[in-house]
Structure formats: structure tokens, C-alpha cells
């Protein structure tokens, strides 16, 4: 590739599997537009029959937390054990809990 060529924008890919309840982030890829991103996602990430539904999202649209903020954001939750619902008895046979 010559230096003057611009790369295609990056897209984040989410796939819902046959038995999955939600779309799961599986990776990213380059594509010229949203329709091509969907098709590339189909070709790159569902080759082995993994998926029944695909979302693609422009990576630029994702706002991510910074690793520098890790402590202020997440450390305060570390010592609040009472927020975990570990004091309930879970009835048997309740799925997806």
C-alpha cells in the first residue's frame, strides 16, 4: 500500500450465537461502510456456524474508559461485599440467573 491510501474505518463486531441470549463482542475489522462491515463480519467471524445475528458498530462511536482511571473507577467497589447477592438462596431450576 502506498502512503497516500487511507485505511478503511474500524468496526467492532458483536455476534449472537445460536444458544446465546445476547450479542457478544468477538473482535473488530475494517470495512468501507456499514453494509460491507456486516458482510465482512459474516465472512470473518461466523465461518463455523457460530452466529444467528450480527451487530457492527463504528469503533469511533465507542467511548472507552482509560486504564489510568482504573483505580478511581473500579477500586471503590472492591470492598463492598454487601453488593454481591450472595446472601440469597437461589431456587433450583431458575435459568439465566
Amino acid at each position, binding site marked *: 500500500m502506498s502512503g497516500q491510501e487511507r485505511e*478503511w474505518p474500524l468496526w467492532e463486531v458483536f455476534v449472537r450465537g445460536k444458544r446465546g441470549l445476547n450479542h457478544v463482542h468477538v473482535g473488530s*475489522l*475494517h*470495512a*468501507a461502510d456499514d*453494509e*460491507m462491515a456486516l*458482510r*465482512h463480519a459474516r*465472512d*470473518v467471524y461466523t*465461518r463455523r456456524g457460530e452466529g444467528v445475528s450480527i451487530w457492527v458498530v463504528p469503533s469511533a462511536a465507542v467511548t472507552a474508559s482509560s486504564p489510568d482511571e482504573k483505580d478511581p473507577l473500579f477500586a471503590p467497589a472492591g470492598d463492598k461485599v454487601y453488593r454481591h447477592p450472595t446472601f440469597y438462596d437461589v431456587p433450583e431450576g431458575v435459568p439465566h440467573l
Partner: protein
Amino acid sequence: MSEIPVESPWAFGAAPDPEDVLAGVDTRVPEGVGPVALAELCLALGDDALVLAHRLSEWCSNAPDLEDDIALANVALDLLGQARLLLARAAAADPGLVDRLVPDLPEGSPAPPEDALAFFRDPDAWRCTRFVEVDNGDFAQTTARLAVFATVRLAAFARLVEHPDPVLSAVAAKAVKELAYHRDHAGRWFLVLAQGTAESRRRLLEGLAALWPLHEELARAYDVDGARAEAEVVLDQLLAVSGVERPEVAAYDGPRHTDGLTRLLAEMQSVARAHPLGVW
């Protein structure tokens, strides 16, 4: 080679028997269907798929982007799967076919019929159209070829689903979904290249013009039950939305096969021919 156990089916997906692609299928030819004509039809359809699959596989590691590399390889694998089923169907329908077309199959060859037809048959016994034989050209020409090919083949296979032979009908039903994706994928790229930059448009138009002399043969070969009329309508829609005129060039009038096929087969068959008793 032969010491490697072949029971591992990983390369063949979930096929019940990796050695026999038609295992468990009733391959008797139904009454009213001519076995030789059926075999010739399946052979022609299979040869086109196999040759274009090989051409597309030449893009492996060479496509403009990793994403397109994988996309073209996927299409190639779909076509390879169609080819295997169709060549196996041809050989099962007409038991004399392999002996006639592959007279110099090595003594004791363990190759199943579809492999004998693919890897030990000389170029003049192939039934493919010249449209799939010629070199890829650049990415734009490859896109133009795939868009036209998938359009023409999809129209024909949509009709072959109703074919009285249940095996061919089942192969067509599977292939229709694959070809619909190929047409969609290549059609989108066709539009993008036609409406992209001056350079992408120039390359697409040149690629299409280079292929067009071979279009007439392709269109005739796939004119099953009026499929051609539908294929031409779809093609005109693609050209119209892309702002591309049908090239004004005369149909190619030359030898039945191109030198491209000879070179392609020399490469594709070289390993099998070098190890005639190999088991894969």
C-alpha cells in the same frame, strides 16, 4: 501421505463419510432422465465451480485487505463444495464417465471419482466455460467476473431446484443460498468500484470489457428453462444502478478452451499427478 490416517473428518465438516460425499444418498437416476445427459450437465456445472474456485483461491494472501482475502476464500470454498457434489453426481449417474474422460488414470489409483475427474483429466475433456478460465486480472476484474457469474448461475440453479433428479435438485437447493450471497457480495463491490474513484471505475470498466466477449458463452451455458432472461434483467439492474453500460464487444470466437485453463490445471493437478497413489 498414505501413512496418515484419513478417518479424521475435520476438513470435511460434519459429512458422515469423508471418503464418499454421496454416502447414504440414493444415486439411482429417476425414470425419464437420461443418465448421460444428466452426467454431462452436472459435469459442466461442476467444472465451472471448480475452475472458478481455483481462480478465487489465487487471491489467498493477495487481496487488498484481510477481510476480502477471507471473503474470496469463503466464496471459493462454497464453489469447491458445489464442484465436489456435482462431479460425484456426474460419475454416479454415468458409471462409464470416468473411464471415458480419464483414460490414463493411474493403475490402482485410490482417488474417488470426483478426484479422478478433477486431478487426472486433461484440459480438452473439461466442460467449463471460458468465462471462468481466464486469469483473474486485478481485483476489479475479479469482482466483475464474480458478479456476472453468480448472477447467471443463481438464475439457473433456482430452476434446477425443480430438476427431476433429486440429487441435482438437492445440490441446487444448497447452492442457491451460497450463490445469493456471492451475488450480493460481488454486486456491492461492483457498485462501490463503479461509483468510487476515477481509478476504481476505470479498472472496473476495463475488467468488464475484457470479460465481456466470453459472456455470451456463459449466458447460453446457464440458460436453463428461461434462466437467461431473468439473469439479464438482474444484470441490467446492477449495471444501471452502477452507471455502467453493457460493453459493446463481439463475442469471442476461438478455441473451446483458453491457455488459461491449461496453466491452471497444470498447477492444480501437479501434486496429485506427482503422487498418483497418494491418499489424502
